[in-house]
């Protein structure tokens, strides 16, 4: 009896420990419960703006509404006018470049390329009234558009190609009396439609998020966290937390998962440890563009084809525009698996006027980081690949004038003349144009932060820890178990096993044969 006591005791401990390890939950439930109750309470406004006499009147101009706002909120406009939402530029320190003032105001992208000369169209999404060219007065407080972000009536819309002015159909009195904390609908109106259509730019921010379910985005889903954008992108004096690295350079003012979930939200320490080198998003956003497709590639060089002398559009079966005479050819994708890069929170950019090297594709923005960088983590990104115009003589990626109200003003979308379009654009930004243009491949990196999936859909270990099509197969500057091996050790190791088997096999055969022989001799 005693003889079995110790082994069976040890076995029992082993089995118990084994069961306890596999039944452990991966998330500390109390933390999630706390967050749910904290963010489940929706804020009730302390005032009813419809009762203020200042707002019980008809407004002939939106600037009058702003003046009425400032009448009570008498310093808020200065905060807004200090924000990147207003200035479309920030002071940024860029590695190797020094301090630069960069933002939508002056940075080129590889979608519609840039706002300069196109303000009337692009700046529909500026939180101001009337930024239609360089003469816009950034010091005039009455030009601040409070309503774009604070309309809670869901009736406020900005006019198409109206340089940020409201659509004439908007009843300013109704809107002014129903203002409040920004909702998804305020932010989404611009941020879901960047690049000229739904989900064109980000891939993880699109109109489906106005009202979605948990499978798409656990945070914003009405049957999930039901969070507003500003629950995470909190604001202090109108300075929003978070920014996108297509325009930003510095590791500051980031909106992070950790601000709510902490740095070690899992009970499994092995998974917590991953957090040192792997961003939460990497595992928890297995794919983006889960509802509608996002633009993955844009080829400007094919623009300008005509049908019966007229510009035209072609669409795929899902209604995505695959060719437009004014813009060229597009590739759209749905349910896209992100690409992965190291990222330490700093980025550099192609700045207008930089001469490009012969190395293509041109990196419109570069996310910095490597395995050896203690601040860097692996993050998921959407890479948008484009072919866009540049000047082969000056080596500038060019700013074309695309938008125009009428033909003959130089806007490519009306005249379909690159030369004149680039001429107008480059003159406007104060850079020379040689008169020759060509097209160059470019890439732009968009960190993926939204469309977090339910935990059951998180990326499985094996999707990265495998030598066969690992999600992070492109990141080779470190050793990863399951993906990497040393060829010599592998060869020698397998060799040793094979040799052992062979040796044992041959020995056994000879042994059996000689035994038979000796038995025969015996007889």
């Amino acid at each position, binding site marked *: 009896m005693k003889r079995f006591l110790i082994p069976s005791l040890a076995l029992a401990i082993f089995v118990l420990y084994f069961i306890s390890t596999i039944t452990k939950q991966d998330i500390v439930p109390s933390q999630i419960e706390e967050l749910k109750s904290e963010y489940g309470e929706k804020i009730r406004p302390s005032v009813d703006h419809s009762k203020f006499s200042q707002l019980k009147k008809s407004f002939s101009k939106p600037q009058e509404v702003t003046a009425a706002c400032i009448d009570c909120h008498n310093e808020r406009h200065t905060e807004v006018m200090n924000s990147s939402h207003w200035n479309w530029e920030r002071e940024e320190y860029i590695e190797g470049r020094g301090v630069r003032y960069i933002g939508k105001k002056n940075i080129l992208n590889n979608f519609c390329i840039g706002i300069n000369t196109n303000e009337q169209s692009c700046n529909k999404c500026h939180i101001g009234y009337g930024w239609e060219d360089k003469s816009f007065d950034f010091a005039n407080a009455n030009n601040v558009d409070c309503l774009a972000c604070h309309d809670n009536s869901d009736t406020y819309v900005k006019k198409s190609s109206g340089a940020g002015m409201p659509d004439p159909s908007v009843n300013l009195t109704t809107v002014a009396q129903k203002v409040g904390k920004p909702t998804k609908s305020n932010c989404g109106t611009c941020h879901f439609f960047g690049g000229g259509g739904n989900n064109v730019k980000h891939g993880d921010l699109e109109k489906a998020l106005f009202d979605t379910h948990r499978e798409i985005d656990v945070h914003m889903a009405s049957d999930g966290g039901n969070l507003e954008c500003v629950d995470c992108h909190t604001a202090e004096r109108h300075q929003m937390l978070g920014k996108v690295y297509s325009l930003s350079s510095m590791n500051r003012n980031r909106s992070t998962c950790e601000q709510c979930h902490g740095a070690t939200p899992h009970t499994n320490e*092995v998974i917590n440890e991953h957090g040192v080198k792997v961003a939460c998003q990497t595992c928890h956003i297995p794919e983006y563009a889960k509802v509608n497709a996002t633009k993955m590639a844009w080829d400007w060089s094919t623009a300008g084809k005509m049908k019966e002398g007229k510009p035209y559009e072609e669409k795929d079966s899902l209604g995505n525009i695959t060719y437009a005479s004014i813009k060229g050819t597009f590739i759209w994708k749905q349910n896209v698996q992100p690409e992965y890069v190291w990222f330490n929170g700093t980025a550099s950019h192609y700045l207008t006027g930089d001469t490009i090297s012969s190395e293509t594709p041109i990196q419109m923005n570069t996310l910095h980081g490597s395995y050896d960088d203690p601040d860097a983590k692996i993050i998921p990104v959407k890479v948008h690949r484009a072919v866009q115009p540049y000047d082969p003589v000056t080596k500038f990626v060019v700013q074309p004038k695309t938008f125009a109200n009428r033909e003959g003003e130089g806007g490519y979308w009306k005249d379909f003349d690159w030369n004149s379009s680039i001429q107008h654009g480059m003159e406007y930004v104060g850079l020379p144009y040689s008169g020759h243009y060509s097209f160059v491949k470019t890439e732009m990196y968009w960190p993926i932060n939204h469309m977090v999936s339910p935990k059951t859909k998180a990326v*499985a270990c094996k999707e990265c820890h495998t030598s066969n099509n690992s999600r992070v197969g492109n990141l080779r500057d*470190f050793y990863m178990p399951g993906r990497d091996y040393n060829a010599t050790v592998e060869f020698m190791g397998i060799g040793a096993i094979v040799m052992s088997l062979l040796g044992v096999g041959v020995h056994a055969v000879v042994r059996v044969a000689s035994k038979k022989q*000796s038995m025969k001799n015996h007889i």
Partner: protein
Amino acid sequence: MKKQLVYSRFNRFWHWMQSVLIIFLGLTGFEIHGSLSFFGFDQAVTLHNTAAYIFLVLIGLAIFWHFTTGEWRQYLPTRQHLRAQIEYYLTGIFRNAPHPTRKTAISKLNPLQKLVYLALKILVIPIMVVSGLLFMYYRYPQSSSIQSLNIDGLEAIAILHTAGAFFLVSFIIAHLYLITTGHTPTANLKAMITGYEVLEDEHSK
């Protein structure tokens, strides 16, 4: 010829626990390595780590046992009869020659076993334990942490651990075969299960 207790109760417990653990660590380990697919990667990691801790406890017990019983002396290497033992395996065994060394309860290992088991004890197992613990407890370099605890990368640790694992697989293959070379093919196995083995009587020599 008489039946003698060769392997004490703890000796057998230790041997079989060790064999189960090493095979289990091998299965889960090679699954993590990407060579097998059985438990699933995440389960394999959890099980591998759990088994590793149990193995550590077992090693602790075994060390205690070795020193309190003096069993460690069994593993003192000797060159005496070493050549004879090798020759026996290479040729003698086919001629039905007698074992060059006599197995007794006091000296149950032949010179080749002494050498190989000692190498396991002082080289392979320590390498696996140390590299395994580093595998589990290494910290990536973090700006605010203690520099000396940082390990820049897993590569060296992982390669050492993998190499050790390959060695152990080869060892198990050879071991499983060589235990059939006793008086009868199953004599050694039976002895390790029951503890008793029929040994040549000292006086019969």
